[in-house]
């Protein structure tokens, strides 16, 4: 089978048995990126020479009997992760020329395990968006239909994996930014428990919600990468000191006895009928393999999106105050005084959606409004978390749709910010409650992929991965290719 069609797990086996070298593999994928990315815009930076050097080093390590767990395996990083001496833009004009002076912990751990990084992927500006249309570097196109969005904010990572330009990618998720693009591109997206993976060197958006994860083609590949990325890091004060299980070894846990919760409201009128049918069929497959389905209630579900759009902008307005035109990033020309330097550098360096979120956050934190909005949202967040806690007293995972519709057309949702925000209605709850969640492909509607969403209690990544892996033993949705990318 052509190398670009193989999963990380298959490539690892081929490299291990000497069927091909990491340099050969890297050359082949760089060629694919060159051939296909002009039509997708999934990459902001391609790291050709650097990747080939890393591949040669991985081959040498293997010959010396010192191959790391990911030796020679190709990856791309979402351009939100700092990579030493590589431009790291976060999809923004503000950081268009920012060269990171250090590695993010995720970047460092994957490199130490031998991964070969082919490039940095396009994304919504500062990860604020659900369609990849807010990027300063232009929208990413969905390989399943290039007139459509791949979702966002990790749209470049998702499109690159879906088009078989690379087998897997890092990504980040604050309200659905891993899982929604995974659903819209027919890939697997895993957002771990809050604090499971270090945020050090990951450019901050909303620090009580942000979490690093992966987009891959199979649950097994996601398990392989998470095992390398997860674990305590003293450089992130919210990173949790919790043992990292062997996620790959856990994949074979049977579905028999798994208690799956279904939320009735998830299947209300807002869900596209084709998506609903695909998700119901996936649930039937889980049931046929021995899982039990039970209805659970999340009474405060409707408050998830508004709660998020208070909490996340509030945190963003604080986090993004570091971009001041003084120490790094964009600086406006000829400022007349310090205030003018700040206001114009930020006014010109940030795009419209980022400015709206900073201003929303500034508003909800300002005197006279703090209690009514920010404090209120933190209380509602507690209610939403309690709903999940109650549900997980009776079920092991909650299953449903990842997104309300398949991929939408570019430009379709840009006029109204709230319509765009509602893309994340099913995913945001997991961020608010800090829960791990995964999206796996479970069907096609009019030729466009649909995602099955699984949410578990804190640190239940193993159950999510094994459930998805068992599902993928029964089905081949994760192996479907967009036309033109075989």
């Amino acid at each position, binding site marked *: 089978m052509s190398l670009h069609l193989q999963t990380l797990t298959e490539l690892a086996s081929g490299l291990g048995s000497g069927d091909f070298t990491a340099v050969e593999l890297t050359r082949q994928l760089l060629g694919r990126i060159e051939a296909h990315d002009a039509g997708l815009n999934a990459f902001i930076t391609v790291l050709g020479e650097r990747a080939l050097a890393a591949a040669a080093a991985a081959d040498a390590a293997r010959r010396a009997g010192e191959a790391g767990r990911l030796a020679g395996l190709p990856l791309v990083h979402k351009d939100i992760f700092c990579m030493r001496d590589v431009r790291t833009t976060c999809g923004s004009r503000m950081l268009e020329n920012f060269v990171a002076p250090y590695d993010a912990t995720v970047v460092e751990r994957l490199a130490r395990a031998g991964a070969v990084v082919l490039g940095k992927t396009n994304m919504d500006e500062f990860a604020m968006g659900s369609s990849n249309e807010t990027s300063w570097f232009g929208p990413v196109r969905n390989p399943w239909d290039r007139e459509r969005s791949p979702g966002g904010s990790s749209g470049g990572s998702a499109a690159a994996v879906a088009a078989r330009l690379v087998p897997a990618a890092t990504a980040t998720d604050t309200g659905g930014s891993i899982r929604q693009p995974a659903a819209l591109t027919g890939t697997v997206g895993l957002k771990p428990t809050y604090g499971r993976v270090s945020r050090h060197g990951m450019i901050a958006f909303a620090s009580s919600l942000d979490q690093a994860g992966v987009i891959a083609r199979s649950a097994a590949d996601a398990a392989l990468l998470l095992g390398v990325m997860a674990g305590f890091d003293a450089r992130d004060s*919210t990173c949790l000191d919790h043992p990292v299980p062997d996620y790959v070894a856990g994949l074979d846990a049977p579905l028999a006895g798994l208690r799956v919760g279904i939320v009735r409201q998830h299947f209300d009128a807002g869900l596209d009928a084709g998506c609903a049918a695909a998700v119901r069929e996936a649930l039937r497959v889980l049931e046929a393999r021995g899982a039990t389905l039970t209805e659970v209630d999340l009474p405060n579900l409707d408050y998830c999106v508004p709660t998020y759009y208070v909490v996340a902008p509030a945190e963003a307005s604080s986090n993004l105050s570091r971009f001041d035109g003084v120490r790094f990033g964009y600086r406006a020309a000829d400022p007349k005084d*310090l205030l003018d330097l700040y206001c114009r550098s930020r006014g010109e360096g940030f795009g419209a959606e980022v400015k709206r979120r*900073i201003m929303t956050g500034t508003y909800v934190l300002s005197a006279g409004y703090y209690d009514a909005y920010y404090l209120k949202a933190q209380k509602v967040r507690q209610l939403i978390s309690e709903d999940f806690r109650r549900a997980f007293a009776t079920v092991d995972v909650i299953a449903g749709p990842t997104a309300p519709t398949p991929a939408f057309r570019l430009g379709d949702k840009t006029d109204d910010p709230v319509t765009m925000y509602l893309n994340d209605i099913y995913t945001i709850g997991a961020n608010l409650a800090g829960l791990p969640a995964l999206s796996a492909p479970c069907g096609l509607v009019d030729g466009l992929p649909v995602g099955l969403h699984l949410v578990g209690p804190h640190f239940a990544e193993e159950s999510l991965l094994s459930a998805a892996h068992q599902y993928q033993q029964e089905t081949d949705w994760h192996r479907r290719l967009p036309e033109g990318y075989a």
Partner: protein
Amino acid sequence: MHKAACIIACASVGGRFQAYFSGFSAVSLDHDQVQHIAMLARLRLADDEIAETVAKLSRIVAFVDQLSSAPTADVPAMAHPLDRTQRLRPDRVTEPDDREHVQENAPAVADGLYLVPRVLE
């Protein structure tokens, strides 16, 4: 102003969220408020950005205003998703001096200092 009644009980996702916007226009921000918020956030909006910003921010504020109907009496505010407190570390220098490398990203530096427009006349 922002407290105006705008909560519409809705029954289902699609219709549900459409309904949030169809019934009200009372919750909104005006031009002066938006300019004030922009100044607090140290953002200069171009003249042609202001009208759209007023309209879209008003829409967002109206949308999040539905939280006012949530029953939160006696509910503690949640600051951390896993209910942890901030971890502290010993107050020791652990990072090496990397100033020159870090300052390569600065728009203007001299003698290791960041340059800004004159602050004191």
